[in-house]
């Protein structure tokens, strides 16, 4: 899992967990995300 955060002017506005998998041929597939949005 990759934790992907976005800070705007020092404030955390989005925290996303992205999911990927690689198939036997080397293609990387995106399997969705879990997102937390923070109002600032």
């Amino acid at each position, binding site marked *: *899992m990759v934790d992907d955060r976005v800070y705007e002017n020092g404030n955390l506005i989005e925290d996303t967990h*992205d999911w990927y998998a690689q198939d036997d041929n080397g293609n990387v597939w995106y399997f969705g995300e879990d997102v937390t949005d923070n109002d600032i």
Partner: protein
Amino acid sequence: MNGAKSADLKQLMGSLIIRMQSGEDKVAIQGGFSIPHDLRANLTAGELVIEGSNGQVNIGGNLSVRTGRQGHLTIRNEVRIGGETSVVAGGDVNYLSGHATLPDFASARFNNSLNINNPYFPIVPGAGYVYHTEGVDDETGEPVTQENPVDVLSATRTDSGREGAGGR
């Protein structure tokens, strides 16, 4: 275009002349589309894309493009130019070719799905990146800075029988 925000041209009888002055201007010529005579573009700023990925763009005459430092030109895939080509660029020019083919998800097999070592998209637990951007808020005009840390963690989950790792 001629004061309008956009135009959808089905057919063109003569030459196409494009003048762009704003960095927000963008013109995309998408195939299949034919310009019987010349395509002449003058970009002080903005982006011109001649896109032949979904059908050929056929320019019967000459292609002449002149760009300022803030002008960007991209020519992609099947663009046929009957005459001469002249590009005088102050900004970026990209010529891209090659068709992308999408792999078939239904037939994909995931026997080692957590070993994500695709050279264009490696996802290795422990890796981390920080992206930094600066800009101006479109609504307020105030300066905005963004920090975007991205960390690959070791957590996994199973989705439709396929085990996946994280990444961006």
